[in-house]
């Protein structure tokens, strides 16, 4: 009897495991996302889309983003990914998804009608999911994602606090920035705050000035191991943080501050300048709707090379390559990134739209952020990136400079040591 029951259980299990049918095209689309603040707007869009086209789009929210990422990985392994989803991971993981045939190549659709769809979107945002010929990831060249918004990181200043210190115009150069900071200090205002407890934000700020001081070729040559971190130009980059520390520009505890806390400080007018991304418009609006502020790119320290800021796609959707509704999914994404929807999305969520034509409808502060897209770059679109262990030594070294534990020269030596170690291992 027992043996019979065991056999029956095994058969039922095997039958259940093997009875999945290949999916068939339907009039329904399924979209998974992680953006809590945009969920209501997406639901409204789904209703509008159904009215317009008769296609039913089910929007499902899975937040926070960590849980969402786990769900995507699990669903990919079980081969039950939805028609449209997002991959919240680095480009190498996106490449793995593409190679596993889980992400559709959208190049043909982007280039159709003389590239109408492609041209309507910010090129820097598309670049995030564009793989060029001969890319290091081994992915067939193409565009594999649709950005629904863009972000960039710049300096923001509180107009009221600057006026209190007698500053009439925002700084145009790094020297002016330091002078303004000292003027603010004299009237008891903390000049600058940022979430530099988060290494990526610190890395972003340092990277902006590295582009300004030595230009991109020298940066990439450093990554290739041809230029050393002890080079005078890199020492100059590290010295910026020593100067900011020595002149009392930075808020106390800046290297332990998460960005959420730095955002509170700026929103509640505890500091006059901050360095943050364009998503902050929504955050500041929630915390202090009366905050009077404006945006400038980080003031350049040199005229040798243009200063570049980080900017790219904010949130990107991809289409499931094995979905029977692939074409409908692409059509929906085309509709979602059309001017009308992008204006509505930007208005309701205070994010920068990915459609350039939708900029006319955004708030003045977002418009200022949008101007920065022309001078933006991002590690995701660079031909090569630094080894993560070297980047970590670089960022933590800067934190050490800020807290006065190390000099720029010492940090340069240590970062170079980390680089030499990686070069010896062949990681370059």
């Amino acid at each position, binding site marked *: 009897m027992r043996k019979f029951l065991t056999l029956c259980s095994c058969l039922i*299990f095997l039958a*259940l*495991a093997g009875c*999945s049918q290949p999916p068939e095209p339907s009039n329904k689309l399924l979209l998974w996302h*992680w*953006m*809590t*603040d945009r*969920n209501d707007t997406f639901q409204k869009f789904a209703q509008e889309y159904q009215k317009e086209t008769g296609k039913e789009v089910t929007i*499902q*929210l*899975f*937040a*926070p*983003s960590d*849980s*969402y990422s*786990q*769900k995507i*990985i*699990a*669903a990919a*392994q*079980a081969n*039950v990914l939805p028609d449209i989803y997002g991959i919240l991971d680095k480009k190498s993981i996106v490449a793995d998804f593409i190679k596993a045939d889980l992400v559709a190549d959208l190049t043909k659709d982007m280039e159709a009608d003389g590239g109408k769809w492609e041209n309507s979107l910010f090129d820097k945002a598309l670049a995030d999911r564009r793989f060029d010929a001969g890319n290091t990831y081994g992915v067939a060249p193409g565009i594999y994602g649709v950005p629904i918004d863009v972000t960039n990181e710049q300096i923001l200043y509180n107009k009221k606090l600057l006026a209190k210190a007698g500053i009439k115009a925002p700084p145009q150069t790094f020297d002016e920035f330091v002078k303004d900071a000292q003027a603010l200090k004299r009237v008891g205002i903390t000049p600058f705050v940022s979430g530099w407890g988060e290494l990526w934000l610190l890395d972003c700020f340092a990277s902006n000035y590295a582009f300004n001081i030595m230009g991109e070729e020298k940066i990439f040559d450093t990554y290739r191991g041809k230029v050393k971190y002890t080079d005078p130009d890199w020492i100059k980059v590290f010295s910026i943080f020593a100067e900011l520390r020595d002149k009392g520009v930075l808020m106390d505890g800046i290297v332990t501050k998460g960005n959420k806390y730095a955002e*509170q400080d700026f*929103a*509640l007018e505890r500091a006059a300048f901050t360095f943050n991304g364009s*998503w*902050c418009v*929504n*955050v500041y609006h*929630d*915390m*202090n*709707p009366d905050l009077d502020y404006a945006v400038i790119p980080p003031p350049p320290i040199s005229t040798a090379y243009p200063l570049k800021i980080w900017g790219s796609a904010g949130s990107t959707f991809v289409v499931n390559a094995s979905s029977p509704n692939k074409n409908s999914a692409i059509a929906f994404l085309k509709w979602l990134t059309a001017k009308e929807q992008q204006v509505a999305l930007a208005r309701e969520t205070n994010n920068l739209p990915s459609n350039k034509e939708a900029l006319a409808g955004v708030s003045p502060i977002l418009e200022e952020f949008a101007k920065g897209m022309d001078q933006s770059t991002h590690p995701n679109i660079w031909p090569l990136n630094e080894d993560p262990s070297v980047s970590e030594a670089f960022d933590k070294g800067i934190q050490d400079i800020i807290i006065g534990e190390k000099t720029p020269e010492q940090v340069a030596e240590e970062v170079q040591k980390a680089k030499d170690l990686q070069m010896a291992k062949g990681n370059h």
Partner: protein
Amino acid sequence: MRTNKYVLWGMTKSTLIHVFLMSVAMTCLFPIFWMIRCAFMTNDTVFVDKALIPHHLNFGNFATAWTQGNFAVYFLNSVIYTVCVVGGIVLISSLAAYSFSRLKFPGKNIIFYLFVAAMMIPLPGSFVALFVLMTKLHLVNTRFGYILCMINVGLSMSILLFKTFFDKMPPELEDAARIDGCTKLGIWWNMAMPFARPAIAVIVIFNSLNVWNEYILATLLLEDSKLMPLQRGLVVFQGANSTDYPVLMAGLTMAAIPIIVVYLAMQKHIVKGLSSGEVLG
């Protein structure tokens, strides 16, 4: 003189102990007080108003949390999940523990250690395997699938706790029951379970808390928002970049009430067990 010295020492000792206990209690209660305090504030005042009791009380956050967070549906779901999962865990783990403790069968120890070893695997480590299995069984996006997984999560610890109790149960009691004609199931129900009442209280509290606050597995296994537990309602107020703190705190306050009630209801059983020397685990 000597008496006074002892009285003085006793009073000092008692005062020091009470001061210490009060500080520990304060560290536990202050976050709850802060949560309730923030629940009555607005987004404009939550970062600015430093007073312990807010100057202006805003009761609207509770209504906002209830409606915007769709709490009515999620609340009911969480109640269903908690009752079914905790009931399932108590039933299955007590039966399993009784078997491990009292019955003789081949591979008993190996199976028991395998259950105990399962406690060492962190939940995220089994996510992919669990999701693939549930997908194959067509139990993804079903209440039943989620309940089964949550029962599985709580089994190991509960079996260990129950077994520790059953091991200490006097064999004479069992023999007497058997002579009186009690079956194995009868002994489990009439003797073992009442004996393990303090363990049941601990298991109910521990697992209720676990199920009530669970969200990661729910995100993985459930897709329809109508099936999601209460924690899903709270996520609505936490954007990727900004958080609606007052409404979130109001939601948290409402979410905490049932679990506090469960704790208070079960607490007396633990205390009773402790005072009668029955807590053995």
